[in-house]
Each structure stands twice: as C-alpha cells, then as structure tokens.
C-alpha cells in the first residue's frame, strides 16, 4: 500500500513499472487494474490553458491512506497505489494514478473504482483553472 503526492510532473506508466518491480510480488497477482486521470484542455465548454491543484498537506495523505486501508479491508487485494499531482500543470499532464493488484480481476476492478470515487469525494484537493482571460475554481467534481 503506497500513497504519494507529487509537486512535479510524473510519468504514470514508468512509475507503475518501477513500483511493481520493487514490490517483488511477481507471480502472486493475476490482475492489475490501472486508472490514470489526465488534465483536459476543455471544461464546461471553455478552453483551459493551465491548472493549479491545491491540497491540504497532512489531511490529504491521511485520507488517501484511510481509503487505501478501507479498500484493503473490503476486497481481497495484494496491494494498492495512489499517486496524485499538486501544483501547476498543463493539458495532458497526468493528475492521478491508481493501481490495484489482486489474484483475480473482480477485486482489482472494484477496489480501484472505490479508490477513485472515494478520492474524488473525500481527499482535500482543489482545482483552479486558467482560461483565456480569467481563472476559476472548479466547483463540482464530475
């Protein structure tokens, strides 16, 4: 179980490969469910040129840890990973990586979905978008 907040751009697929190599559980899992969320260049009908992600240091980590523990209690999984960006970002930059390893696919699918949904509703992050002529806080998670 690993969580990480990154204030610089990261490459999720490379991160995933390196993490998986380090865990040393090759052969133990039959399923890996991976979710990568990236920044769009549009939102609510307008062009978005950049975004700033703010978080509540300490509480964010606490809640990512909490939801990871909840997933591990509810499903029979081998491991989970959550990496989330903060700071300044540009369209196409990865925002979040969630991965879950399990023996069979159902637990990996369900637990990864749970982690993403809980992250979106409980982890204290806030997005501020830069449009052509102004900035605006994103008010609702879709």
């Amino acid at each position, binding site marked *: 179980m690993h969580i990480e907040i990154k204030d610089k751009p990261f490459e999720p697929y490379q991160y995933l490969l390196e993490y998986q190599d380090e865990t040393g559980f090759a052969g133990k899992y039959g399923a890996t469910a991976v979710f990568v969320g990236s920044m769009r260049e549009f939102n609510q009908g307008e062009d978005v040129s950049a975004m700033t*992600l703010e978080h*509540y240091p300490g509480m964010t980590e*606490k809640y990512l840890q909490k939801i990871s523990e909840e997933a591990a209690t509810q499903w029979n999984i081998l491991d989970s990973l959550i990496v989330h960006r903060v700071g300044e970002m540009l369209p196409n930059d990865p*925002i979040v990586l969630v991965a879950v390893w399990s023996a069979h696919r159902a637990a990996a699918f369900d637990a990864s979905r749970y982690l993403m949904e809980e*992250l*979106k509703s*409980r*982890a204290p992050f806030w997005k501020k978008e830069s449009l052509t002529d102004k900035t605006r*806080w994103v008010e609702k*998670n879709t």
Partner: protein
Amino acid sequence: MIGLQAEIRKQENTIFMTDAVINIKFFASLREQVGLADVQISKAGVSTVMDAWNRATENRDMPENTLMAVNMDYVSAEHTVKVGDEVAFFPPVTGG
C-alpha cells in the same frame, strides 16, 4: 525574591495566553473569499467549529457547501473544539 516570583507568574501567564488558542486554516476559494489562510484565535468563548468560524471571520456568512475538519478529520459545525485544535474550512473537494 518577590521580583522573581512576579517574573515566574508573568511567564506562566504568557505560556497560558499563548497556549489557549485554536489554529484556523482556510483553503482554495474560501481562503480567497475570507482573505485569510492561517490564523490563530483565542479559545475563550469558542466551543464549537461554528463559533471558531464566527470568531475567525468576524461573523461572515458561511457558504452553504463549506466543509469542516478538526485535526484533519471531517466534522460538522456543532463539533466541539479544544485548545490547540487545528480547524480547517474549505469548499467541496475537486481532486482526481
């Protein structure tokens, strides 16, 4: 000797005064609306999270969707606060 005792009392008072506070944080759009990021308020007369909001913002109306945390756990406005608590106010979260 009397001078020394007075000095000790003064120091104890200072420590007491410094300790009897609640730390308040505001995040994102709420930080910009209130114009505050981190403030300390006196604990005196403050028993709930709502009281802490009223003290820190000088009775500003709280936006309906405001979320609240005490020591990094979500709570309601009626939650009791203690000296030294960290109380945070922020808008709905939009990560992921």
